């Protein structure tokens, strides 16, 4: 019973909001429309793609995507059409340009810094405490003195 529940939970996918009357008769165009819709952010419910959003504007945009595809637009032309009206904000994959360099590069910079720190930590733990290997002449004398006194003590 529990196993069945777990299987069902993992089988659950986000429900598509695409309504039957929106679906194009051409399956190739429809699948392109679905791919594009999944990459376009709904401007009302902001962390949802228009493909799964139930809002009115999302539905209008889905219909618009299909209309552009039927009119013969390429995928890029459809994206450009949306960006012209709603900005880069509608793209779930932000483009590579001067305002997004930080966004794209930050993960690598942080990973490099982290890696550098890890390497430093391992180096230090392998090397052991510095200067432990050698003693100064004075320290050798004191050490010899102490050990001598100790051994004398036990001998008595």
């Amino acid at each position, binding site marked *: 019973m529990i196993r069945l529940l777990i299987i069902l939970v993992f089988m659950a996918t986000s429900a598509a909001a695409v309504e039957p009357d929106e679906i194009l008769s051409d399956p190739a165009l429809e699948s392109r429309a679905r791919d594009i819709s999944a990459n376009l952010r709904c401007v009302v419910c902001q962390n949802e793609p228009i493909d799964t959003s139930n809002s009115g504007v999302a539905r209008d945009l889905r219909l*618009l995507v299909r209309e552009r595809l039927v009119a013969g637009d390429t995928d890029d032309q459809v994206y450009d059409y949306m960006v012209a*009206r*709603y*900005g880069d904000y509608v793209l779930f994959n932000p483009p590579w340009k001067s305002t997004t360099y930080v966004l794209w590069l930050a993960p690598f910079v942080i990973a490099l810094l982290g890696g550098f720190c890890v390497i430093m930590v391992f180096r230090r733990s392998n090397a052991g405490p510095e200067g432990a290997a050698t003693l100064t002449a004075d320290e050798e004398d004191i050490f010899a003195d102490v050990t001598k006194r100790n051994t004398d003590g036990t001998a008595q």
Partner: protein
Amino acid sequence: MNRFLIFLPLCVAIVIGLAGWWGLNPDRDPNSVPSALIGQPVPIFDLPAIEGIGGLGLSTQDFADASGPTLVNVFASWCVPCRAEHAVLTRMVREDNLALVGINYKDKPAAAAAWLTELGNPYVRIGSDQTGRAGIEWGISGVPETFVVDADGIIVFRYVGPITSDAALATLRNALAQAEGDNS
């Protein structure tokens, strides 16, 4: 190396502090969507008038020969905040003598006509956008939304939500004054 590490907790604290200072700033609205249309000319659209009220429709051409800034308000009779905003806009038109045009978004003409009869019609022109297509051309995400278009037909300001608070009214007046100043 050890000396450098002493400052590490301080650096971490500063970074967390800065993130908090930015993130908890009450003026920052995480839901605000930057508009792609600021600085762009008015999109191409052509809307008929609302049936039954005998006014003028609204199209891109109407912005070409404006003598000053135009306020564009997207509204609908089914939108409750629009009702509150309507009084503020009516007063602004009366007091500031500005040109207000409307886009009636996804509304039934009869409902819109009844709404305007009840509350009054401060708009010089209203385009009836029954499909919502003109709304998409303007890049709106809902109603109400308000734009300021300068005399050259360039969109200079966008406000999402009803203009009912004093703060909203102040930012709108500021944008209008700027649009006016640029052309004089």
